[in-house]
């Protein structure tokens, strides 16, 4: 195999991996861009719903792709509840001009500890994985070999990106969500129920993440702490793509995935992940609003 072929393969693998990062980053970016909350528990929330999808498959034999139909509404309700019960009091307490209460960051870090360790306590540290779902096998395009299941994730993330973009920009609900994201005082004056919109957004973010988790389930083994590494990369993706930019998350997810795999191709896999975080620092220094971001900092 020539070097050019190897690099092409690395790039394609990177794009497939980037699809996974992008789908996690999408939910995070919705929450980050609208509520201005860093959801530190995002990875753990995804893992919880992956467990749910797994048990549906394990106990009832429901294929993870079908199980989404059950998992995603539950995830939406869960997110709505978390925002309503835990985060809303923080916003009610803060002064009106505090847009990014740092306390919420800590709150979500605590929440992350609670749910990831609860998962550890309940399911143990062993690795669970789904085998024998739909879309097994590989696709051959020229000299390239791609996993069908990973291609499905990329397809899902593209569809989700288009869907959320449409929701935010072409519906009444989307207008309200964006209004709250831009200026919550002004939105409240216009008669929008800010906290309801916040909770809807958080629920939507969790639902998107659950879709990603279920789509990744057939090839990603589950452990209680599997979400942390993914969520960390998702933070990088969100910052690189730009706060609140939905297409940015997709673009940045793919860039990060390619960087990581190509970096790992030339060095080793741990250097690959270090490169990702080095990019994060460079972006923060040189262009904090990200590639496609609109929010000035």
């Amino acid at each position, binding site marked *: 195999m020539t070097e050019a072929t190897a690099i092409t393969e690395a790039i394609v693998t990177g794009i497939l991996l980037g699809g996974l990062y992008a789908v996690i980053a999408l939910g995070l970016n919705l929450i980050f861009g609208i509520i201005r909350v860093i959801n530190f528990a995002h990875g753990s929330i995804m893992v919880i719903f992956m467990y749910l999808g797994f048990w549906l498959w394990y106990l009832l034999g429901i294929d993870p792709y079908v199980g989404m139909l059950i998992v995603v509404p539950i995830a939406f309700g869960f997110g709505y509840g978390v925002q309503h019960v835990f985060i809303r009091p923080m916003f009610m307490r803060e002064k009106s001009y505090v847009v990014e209460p740092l306390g919420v960051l800590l709150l979500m870090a605590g929440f992350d500890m609670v749910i990831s360790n609860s998962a550890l306590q309940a399911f143990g540290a062993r690795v669970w994985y789904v085998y024998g779902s739909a879309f097994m096998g590989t696709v051959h395009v020229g000299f390239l070999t791609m996993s069908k299941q990973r291609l499905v994730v990329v397809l899902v993330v593209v569809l989700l990106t288009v869907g959320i973009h449409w929701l935010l920009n072409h519906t009444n609900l989307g207008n309200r969500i964006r209004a709250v994201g831009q200026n919550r005082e002004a939105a409240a004056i216009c008669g929008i129920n800010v906290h309801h919109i916040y909770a809807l957004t958080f629920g939507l973010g969790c639902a998107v993440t659950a879709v990603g988790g279920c789509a990744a389930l057939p090839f990603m083994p589950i452990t209680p702490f599997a979400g942390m590494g993914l969520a960390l990369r998702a933070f*990088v993706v969100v910052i690189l793509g730009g706060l609140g930019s939905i297409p940015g998350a997709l673009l940045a997810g793919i860039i990060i995935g390619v960087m990581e795999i190509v970096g790992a191709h030339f060095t080793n896999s*741990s250097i690959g992940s270090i490169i990702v975080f080095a990019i994060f620092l460079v972006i923060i220094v040189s262009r904090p609003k990200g590639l496609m971001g609109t929010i000035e900092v």
Partner: protein
Amino acid sequence: MKQDSGIRALGERLRTRQIPLGWVIIAVVLILLIIVPFAWKGNPYYVHIVITIFIWGYMATAWGLVGQSGQLSFGHAAFMGIGAYTTGILYSQFGVTPWLGVFPAVGLATLGGVIIGIPTLRLRGVYFALATFAFGFIILMTVKNATYIGPVYIGGGAFLSLPRAGEAPAVFQFESKTPYYFMALAMLAGIVYLSHWFNRSRMGFYWTAIRGDQDAAESLGINAAKYRIRAMLISCALTGLGGAFFMQYFRFFSPQKVLDVSQSIQIALIGIVGGWQSVFGPMIGGFIMVPAAELLRLNLRAFPALSPIIYGIILMLFILFMPKGVNEPFMRGLNWLDRKYWRPSQNANNENNEKVGRQ
């Protein structure tokens, strides 16, 4: 009122209750803590726990300096780990005594603060918290995965230990726990005093103004980024120093022990339970959380995942219901006792009353 500073004058001022209750309590606690290692001579385990309290109280106070300027660091374990690894490796591989090794340790920890702080503290909002988290993660991943950095062996995630030298003050190793105890006590007392001093300095007032309302502070001509960066650098240097001591006391180190994300969260948790924007809060947090953690560890051996769950719940409860930590009710109670019983006659125009209460 006598102005000469003899013991008799001090006794006289104490008798006439001219000294604020806060200072009296600090003095009593210090005396008790000095007695502890002699009273518990047969119980090195208790002494060890108190040393651990001092170390974590120190770390949390150093971390709290960043909090005083209104920002939140999620990666302080990185600076602690840099300090620990630097002195540890210098001693075990190059034979440099920790008394000298502490200088590069502090220097490198400060350099880490420069790399993270200078770009991100110019921005508002959450970037700093995210960047410190990312920095902690980079350092952790690097140390976990690299066996050598240049000619220096860093173990690639393995446990490294210091060669034992017996009773050797020249390389900071002692047989008994007492010297470590007094060193840790001195460091804790020193950093709390330093934090108090900063809080009373011009820079401390700037910090308070910036964390209260950055726009208002900047409109008065305060360079918010500059003072935040200073807070960060001071905090990093002191955390590196603490890491060096941590290393010398425990004598072995691994990424899990000094660099892990959970250690960063441990530091932050102690600071938050105590009160993350206050001077005395993080130290009080150490006195509460370290024994609590030890009790949890001893009683919940069968359920190792349960104690982080409880930590998480404690963190959430404090953020939701007591965001200023135990420091605030503690100080209010102290102030009330002072006014009501200790110095009832002179509360009207005594500014010290307010000083104690405001922290």
